[in-house]
């Protein structure tokens, strides 16, 4: 018995790596929280015999990982940061895949009255006017950058905000937990919101302004900068992500009867 137990320990330590081809893709928390990955990964594995390893991080860190050559490609949603990434020569090109949208979530009582706001800028202005608690991601992610650009569009600067503006420096899920606990307003992507399990008193209050659309793009890491990246696998994956099959899977993905993503890759 004792030998068996020790043998089990030993084999546990020696047991090694998987065999199918592997590549690493940095994706954003909002993409991963949507649950779409769980639909796509098994299909990718079946079609390409590719073990796609997802690193779930904010857009800021995803781009850092790509710049350092620690991943083979990134799938992110912050166009300005993506263009900077390309200008630095870190990525070979940028391919738009799909988009979803951001929504304004807040307490059911809606003290700032953003349900009646005519656009996103007006909604933010009324939150700032009332000084209602507002949770910001504050982690340099794509969602955070989007939020900052929305404040800028509303002619407001978060630097000068009072204590009601709370930058938590955390991922989408953790930020939603915080907002639920404080009954605060927050900007989230629709997918994370629908999949979120701890909604509490929070409700979806405002959505639909075209500025809230959120474009996801796929950027393979340049093999000029980092010769070790798996360019060929990254190309195969790109071809798959822009295929008719991916289109049907992405457009057909629903949570609670709502479609989340719109496929818009140029085929």
């Amino acid at each position, binding site marked *: 018995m004792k030998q068996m137990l020790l043998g089990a320990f030993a084999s546990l*330590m020696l047991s090694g790596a998987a065999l199918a081809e592997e590549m690493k893709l940095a994706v954003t*928390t909002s993409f991963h929280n949507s649950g779409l990955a769980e639909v796509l990964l098994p299909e990718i594995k079946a079609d390409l015999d590719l073990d796609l390893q997802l690193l779930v991080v904010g857009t800021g860190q995803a781009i850092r990982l790509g710049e*350092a050559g620690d991943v083979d490609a990134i799938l992110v949603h912050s166009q300005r940061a993506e263009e900077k990434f390309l200008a630095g020569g870190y990525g070979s090109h940028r391919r738009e895949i799909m988009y979803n949208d951001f929504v304004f979530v807040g307490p059911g009582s809606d003290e700032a009255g953003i349900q009646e706001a005519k656009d996103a800028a007006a909604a933010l202005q009324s939150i700032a006017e009332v000084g209602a608690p507002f949770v910001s991601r504050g982690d340099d992610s794509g969602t955070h950058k989007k939020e900052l650009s929305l404040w800028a569009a509303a002619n407001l600067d978060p630097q000068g905000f009072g204590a009601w503006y709370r930058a938590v420096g955390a*991922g989408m899920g953790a930020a939603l937990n915080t907002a639920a606990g404080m009954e605060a307003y927050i900007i989230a992507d629709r997918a994370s919101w629908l999949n979120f399990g701890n909604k509490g008193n929070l409700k979806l209050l405002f959505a639909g302004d075209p500025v809230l659309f959120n474009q996801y793009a796929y950027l393979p890491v340049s093999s000029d900068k980092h010769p070790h990246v798996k360019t060929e696998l990254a190309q195969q994956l790109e071809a798959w992500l822009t295929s008719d099959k991916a289109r049907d899977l992405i457009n057909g993905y629903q949570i609670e009867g709502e479609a989340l993503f719109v496929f818009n890759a140029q085929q």
Partner: protein
Amino acid sequence: MADLLDGMVRAFWLLVTLDRDLVEITLRSLQVTLTALAIAALIALPLAALLSVRRFRLRRVTIAVLNALMGLPPVVVGLIVYVFLSRSGPLGVLGLLFTPTAMIIAQVIIIVPLIASIAHQSLRELWSDYHDLLISMNATQSQRIKALLWDGRRALLTAALAGFGRAIGEVGAIMVVGGNIDHATRVLTTAIALETGKGDFAMALGLGFVLIALAIAVNLAIHWLGHTESEGRW
């Protein structure tokens, strides 16, 4: 409160049905932490014995530094290991970032000071008992170290278990260097962080209970293997 109950129910079902993902991440947790523990013990225990039997100039400083490093924040260790192992870091060519090996390296760094400090405390006392005897027998330094390590094995087991406890429950460092990749580097603690992020507290708590049960099981197994705490053997 309802979450806590849900969590217990969820943990129960995960265990009873031997959920495949659960088994996988549990085995990986064990693999990473036990490997780290074995390596750390190989470094820390001889170091502790050496610090007890040998007087050298930087001994005090070494001991003080080891004691201070017991409180090393795991996330800082993770970040340092990350910078070294990143493709643009000095050890980037090895391609170790986001592998279980990277997680093992980080955990070794975290628990070596802890194991060495605790082991040194008990070996030092043992040495004060053995000092005259071993010197009068004219034992060589390596013989002294061996004698101390063997006769102090019960206390050293405690030191090792403390290291195990710190490593198995650690999340900051392995999240940074492992990346929490499904089917590659996801372990119990990073899975708990992930489920918390999704707002699925019941699942997170369920995994937490599994982690606690695992820690207890490993401790019991080690005591049983070492015959400690059994009659006439202490």
